């Protein structure tokens, strides 16, 4: 099964990331987003990052999860290759959804990159049983 595919959108990048679980779909979504800027297959797994985010609902959780990789790219120059471990939990806290993950990747400067994902958006966002759909602003 393919991990993700890009759909038509005039201005921005819109993709669907598939998975048997939300965890798998979220992981593939992160990779899909980075693939707008670089080829994940070529990135070496040299650095490891721990990710921990929360959200008021699953949409917000996905938004915050993806945004983390834009943040890491800007601040630390970290370019994601793939998600190694991921766990989504529902708690009784004020922010009921939480996610913990382990990501691997490398310093962006070494790779051929293009375009620029400015932000994750809620536009046309869908969390379905077997996929998630996201439009990112570029």
């Amino acid at each position, binding site marked *: 099964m393919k991990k993700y595919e890009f759909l038509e959108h005039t201005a921005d990048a819109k993709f669907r990331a598939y998975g048997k679980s939300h965890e798998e779909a979220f992981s593939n979504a992160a990779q899909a987003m980075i693939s707008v800027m670089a080829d994940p297959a070529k990135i070496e797994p040299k650095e490891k990052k721990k990710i921990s985010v929360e959200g008021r609902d699953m949409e917000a959780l996905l938004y915050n999860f993806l945004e983390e990789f834009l943040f890491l790219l*800007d601040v630390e120059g970290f370019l994601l290759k793939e998600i190694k471990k991921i766990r989504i939990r529902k708690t009784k806290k004020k922010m009921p959804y939480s996610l913990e993950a382990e990501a691997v990747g490398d310093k962006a400067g070494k790779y051929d990159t293009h375009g620029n994902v400015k932000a994750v958006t809620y536009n046309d966002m869908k969390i379905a049983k077997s996929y998630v759909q996201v439009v990112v602003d*570029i």
Partner: protein
Amino acid sequence: MEIKKISEYMWQIPKTAGMNVPAVIFASEKLMEKIKQDKTLEQAANVAKLPGIIKHSLTMPDAHQGYGFPIGGVAAFDSDDGIISPGGVGYDINCGVRLLRTSWGEKEIVPKMGSILDAVFKEVPAGVGRKGITKLSKDVLFEVLEKGSNWAVSSGYGKKEDLARTEENGCMKGAEPQTVSERALSRGMPQLGTLGAGNHFVEIQRVDRVFDEETAKTFGITNEGQVMVMIHTGSRGLGHQIASDYIKEMENRLGTEGLPDRELVNAPIQSELGQKYYKAMSCAMNYAFSNRQLITHWVREVFGKVMGTNEGMDMVYDVCHNIAKFEEHEIDGEKRKVCIHRKGATRSFGPGRKEIPEVYRSTGQPVLIPGSMGTASYVLVGTKKAEEISFGSTAHGAGRLMSRAQAIRSFRGEKIKQEMGKKGIMLKSNSWKGIAEEAAPAYKDIDEVARVSDKAGIGKLVARVTPLGVMKG
């Protein structure tokens, strides 16, 4: 959805259930056909549903689908009872364009274009993950956020005269760095003085055609063949993070119930949260002004080195494309202070407005509309009519027509570069794919966008400029 044609260049979506005001679109038949193909009109109608919106929700000729507001969306809200919405400004806060004139003709510059572009490429960091001024401390960053271009000029980046020729004199007064999150600050710290990627560029251009000689002269545009420099960039990761932070905070504190689109989340303009966003957004605006000011300085240095002097490289103007601010507008015969949102639109004030520099007060302000990579750009002049019918606003660019994925499938960067070379345009970029994404056929026809702005009366044609050398991020 019912769409009524009001005149040759004006259309209306009448007020229906849920809408507080009608929506108005400035477009020709040709542009309207394109606009209808995505969700632009639905989004324009959604904007009309927001509380406190005044008169109409506007859509500019280059509009395309955005998130929340369409790109090319303009709306005014009552400054007491209205709202402010981060999605009505956009993620790239104060993405904008600056134009420098020069005293050179193309014949003097073209033979040295290779050296000029190489040097610009070296001086101005561009692309994904490239760093700007090294070791920017938090104190300095706070100063940038508070003072905008004033910080840049007093730190030696540029000339005092540049300030007056920048929208808001290069500094939004209400900026308060304390309203900016640590996350946004840490994204801003390494990126000041970087171009970014995507559609951002530094372009060396020639004046191709002058439509209005007198106004052009006032703007410093004297003859065809004159060389100009255009800079297009914004507030980088800092601005993106501020938008995202406040969308989240508004969601968490006010909820999204009843909103036609989650990204239309908003706060009453006079509320603590609304004010806080306004102050943070003003910080991002100042960051973007400084960013363009630094790049201007480096470009001048490059010309100074290669040409032996940079005398005459004066600013024409610097305009913002993604902002919210308070302006006075005459509405149904009454002067009112309103909160204007321009998302992918340019202010287009006519003669006499106190906000525009004295040198332009008799003509109206310069309006800069960048084209897509390899195509023309336009210099227009703001009009009284724009103040009457479009809250003093017009288009901001060509507007995309084709998705980036489709562009990559359709074009090859190498070939685009070759074809541009045949037309006498030199191109430098980090990435072939990046070139393919920004290929001209992926955009609407800029000539048509500028023509419609002129015919609708919301920005009159002054000059058309075409590229000689392009550095793409």
